């Protein structure tokens, strides 16, 4: 009977979770659904209170962005998302795109990171509209930054993770969300509001 209940639960989850995100008409026909995935598939290598691992990654807009360039100037939010053209990821950043004022009020910059290459990210983010924040490619060496933070999944994609790093470069919040769901915006905003401006 336990087996039956487990089997039914798995089926129910698959039915109800796979398509609940990425419903914007703007994305119609362009989103690949990977189905319901293991909620998390990595082990964090950092935690709140430690110095954030430094990195430098190519940006879709050109050039490279390094974490160090914000030291002493701005709080930094890293938003890792698993992959371009997938359901939840395709609407998470468009949501962040309308809250630039919240980031600015908390002297914070958002850096969006995936393990996709630049051309893919270029095409994907273009259909989101004009994103105000840099989007970085952790494609090569594949997932190296995601791996430093402990959010590289065993299939080579990244977790849906958020790191809030203060102006001194210290991680104030490390959160790995269920990959199948979008993290609640209020969680991030509350953390931002606690930072030194």
């Amino acid at each position: 009977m336990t087996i039956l209940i487990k089997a039914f639960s798995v089926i129910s989850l698959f039915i109800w979770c796979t398509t609940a995100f990425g419903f914007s008409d703007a994305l119609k026909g362009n989103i690949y659904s990977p189905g319901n995935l293991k909620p998390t598939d990595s082990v964090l290598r950092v935690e709140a209170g430690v110095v954030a691992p430094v990195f430098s990654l190519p940006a879709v807009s050109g050039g490279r962005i390094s974490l160090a360039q914000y030291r002493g100037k701005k709080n930094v939010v890293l938003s890792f998302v698993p992959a371009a053209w997938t359901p939840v990821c395709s609407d998470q950043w468009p949501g962040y795109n309308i809250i630039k004022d919240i980031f600015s009020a908390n002297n914070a910059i958002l850096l969006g990171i995936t393990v996709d290459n630049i051309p893919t990210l270029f095409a994907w983010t273009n259909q989101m509209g004009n994103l105000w924040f840099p989007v970085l490619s952790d494609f090569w060496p594949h997932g190296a930054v995601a791996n430093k933070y402990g959010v590289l999944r065993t299939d080579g994609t990244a977790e849906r993770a958020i790191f809030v790093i203060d102006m001194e470069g210290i991680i104030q919040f490390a959160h790995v969300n269920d990959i199948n769901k979008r993290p609640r915006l209020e969680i991030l905003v509350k953390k931002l509001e606690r930072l030194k401006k």
Partner: protein
Amino acid sequence: MNTFRKKGCLLLIAIGIYFLFSGSLLSASDSLPSKVLVSEIQLPAPKNPADINYLGLKEGANFKVNQVSANVVIVEIFSMYCPACQREAPEVNRLYSIIKEDPFFKDKIKLIGIGTGNSEFEVGVFKKKYNVPFPLIPDENFYIHKRIGEVRTPYFLGISIDKQAGTQVFYSKAGKFKGAEPFLEKIIQLSGLKKEE
């Protein structure tokens, strides 16, 4: 016993696969949602007194569409995270203004937005960002969205309320509309609302 369990599991998996591919639960339908479902869905009570007053509801009470003080209710299914909804927001606001400024239609046609997968906070962010003047209701756990048929966003429903004929969905549209005026004209025409000669 093991054989029985295995057969039971196989049966459940078969049922799951049937639902998955039948499209009845998963499809992002553009078709007219069931009028029974839409009229029977309990919507959470608005908290803003202006919204309560606009809809003609009792304070603090959950409500159904047919309790709104109007002859026609236009429901927009949207998401704060949906780029198409963001781009459409100013035009939907203009639709509200056109109706509000028309002495005949202002009390007969009302608008409600349902933020699919959005928390109250997220709906509030959208409302503030686009100065949305009509009530926006959160549907954090996709409860309403699933009952309506997991439609793409934005999605518009025209619902007529008639004490004798009952509540009827007379119009539905996926994606953005081509201008507030032609959209309103269509709503008026299909709903049968006519200005007195």
